[in-house]
């Protein structure tokens, strides 16, 4: 029983990270109908930006086991990483995706795969392929309830992820840009006719999605101890599956999907076999696409001739 609870807690914390990344996929897909394969790499760059900026602020991996760093330093790291990733997201959109935006749908897909490959390999050159120990932005405190262990890191993940998701919700529902994003995902041509600067809105979508992925990257680093330049590949795919599972284009759907994928993965690894922890994600993907392609919380849209 304690084991099950422990697996569930671990699964949920992993799932909240997936959810943060899935938001970026779902927003971009909702508007451009593009699977932004490079999103996983933006997540990776976000994690590395956090790694280096923490280093620049004097937060190192070793000392932190015995020393507390003030919370505002952690926030600086978070904001730096989010800003850098947002910039990267906008750059990718500008240089790689905008030129092919009106090409047949598969052209941007291949471009996205290319960008993803490029960033992976550039990451290996810049950051070295060796896994790096993530700086201890938080010093670890463990709480034990009836044998179930929860660390302050897990709690931080839940809190930060929740805050960001609420913030995104407010952004999308209450601000002008958010409303424009929803208009674009409903019908991009009509939105253009209404005088919305679509380029600008798409740019903000990439910026917001990338910033969330970077936050996910930092939480991932804290939780998973090490980061490496290929960390975005599988994590990105899983987050994409989470977005599809929840219903692509749906923000609450991405959150639900992320949590479910995290749980499924953790339970498979714990009770079935860890060899199949990656396979289970793809099995879920295939099942959902075959049985309910609009996803759990998605809206059915009839394809018009």
């Amino acid at each position, binding site marked *: 029983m304690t084991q099950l609870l422990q697996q569930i807690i671990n699964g949920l914390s992993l799932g909240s990270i997936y959810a943060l990344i899935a938001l970026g996929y779902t927003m971009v897909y909702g508007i451009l109908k593009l699977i932004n394969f490079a999103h996983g790499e933006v997540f990776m760059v976000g994690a590395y930006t956090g790694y280096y900026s923490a280093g620049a602020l004097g937060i190192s991996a070793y000392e932190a086991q015995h020393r507390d760093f003030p919370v505002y330093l952690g926030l600086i790291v978070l904001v730096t990483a989010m800003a850098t990733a947002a910039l990267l997201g906008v750059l990718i959109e500008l240089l790689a995706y905008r*030129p092919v935006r009106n090409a047949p749908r598969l052209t941007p897909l291949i471009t996205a795969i290319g*960008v993803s490959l490029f960033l992976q*390999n550039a990451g290996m050159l810049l950051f070295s392929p060796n896994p790096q120990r993530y700086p201890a932005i938080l010093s670890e405190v463990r709480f034990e309830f009836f044998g179930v262990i929860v660390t302050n890191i897990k709690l931080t993940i839940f809190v930060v992820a929740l805050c960001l998701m609420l913030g995104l919700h407010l952004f999308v529902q209450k601000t002008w840009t958010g409303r424009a994003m929803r208009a674009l995902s409903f019908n991009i041509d009509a939105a253009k006719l209404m005088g919305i600067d679509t380029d600008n809105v798409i740019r903000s979508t990439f910026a917001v999605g990338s910033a969330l992925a970077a936050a996910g990257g930092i939480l991932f680093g804290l939780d998973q101890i090490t980061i490496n330049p290929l960390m975005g*590949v599988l994590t990105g795919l899983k987050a994409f599956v989470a977005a599809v599972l929840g219903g692509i284009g749906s923000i609450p759907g991405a959150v639900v999907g992320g949590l479910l994928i995290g749980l499924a993965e953790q339970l498979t690894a714990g009770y079935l076999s860890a*060899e199949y922890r*990656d*396979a289970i994600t793809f099995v879920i993907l295939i099942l959902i696409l*075959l049985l309910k392609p609009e996803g759990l919380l998605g809206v059915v849209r009839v394809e018009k001739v």
Partner: protein
Amino acid sequence: MKRTLLRAAIFVAVLLVIYGLGVACEAGFTEYVQRIVLLAGINVILAVGLNLINGTTGQFSIGHAGFMAVGAYGAAYVGVQLAPVAHRALGTGAVSNAFSFNLALLAGALFAGLSGLIVGLPSLRLRGDYLAVVTLGFGEIIRILFNNATFLGAATGYFGDDPSGLPAYTTFFWVYAWVALIVVLIHNLTFSQTGRSLTAIREDEIAAEAMATPTTRLKVTAFAISAATAGIAGGLFAHMQAGVRPEDFRFEKSIDMIVMIIVGGLGSISGAILGGIFVAVSLELMRDLQQYRLVLYALLLIVIMIVRPQGLLGRRELYQLFRKRKAGSGLESSR
């Protein structure tokens, strides 16, 4: 009757030419270059097969490495089981080897085709990028299954019981005989009634359906054929490498195949042939660059997509290019 004779004569002539070229290649090139030539041939089979589904039919598979893996493992396993039987029945000469090798290749193609059918039947209802992601998922699942299959050597890979590996049956002759066969088959299919229906599906699936084209059946068939050709390539690859290992069929391999067909031009058979050769040669030429190699490879992919998304040839065939120069007629309409 006369036509049959003529065809038989052409068939024999082509085999002879391939055989001659093979002899010349073995005499004139180092083993290193010979390997690149073989690899290029295998790539051509992969590209031409993938082009049928991605180019001609307009469906998108980015998990074809999975089918190649099924073919490679299937051919390797069947080959190892079959060899003693063939030796008993036909002796240990070249005939027996050729027999068991080609039977093994066909078995690999059968396995790959069947798995293509299993994957295609449910997932071809999906369109465009969703289909792409499902094929990616299947490709990964197939690789993970092989990685955990202990009777197939798990992560070390499968190479029979002899540590020196599977017999090196993959020669110039066999690779290019299969290349010729598959190119002709796919070419005839593409320019047949069925091929036109496939193109119709690519251009407008709903309109094709309205014209009573059995879209689902055609898509699944094309997918299975495409998977089977990848299986042949896998079997040839296994017997060139003297073994198969799961890590050779990662997502990167599927990307290589995508690069092959988009460099040459999606939907063009001659383009796929050029692309297959291009990937084999360019990856080799860039080997000196070490850590920078894959960065450049990725950049190349991006730049092609932005600057010339239709690839070198677009949907045209190489011979149509020359015809245009002569006649000056529109190409798309000449189809």
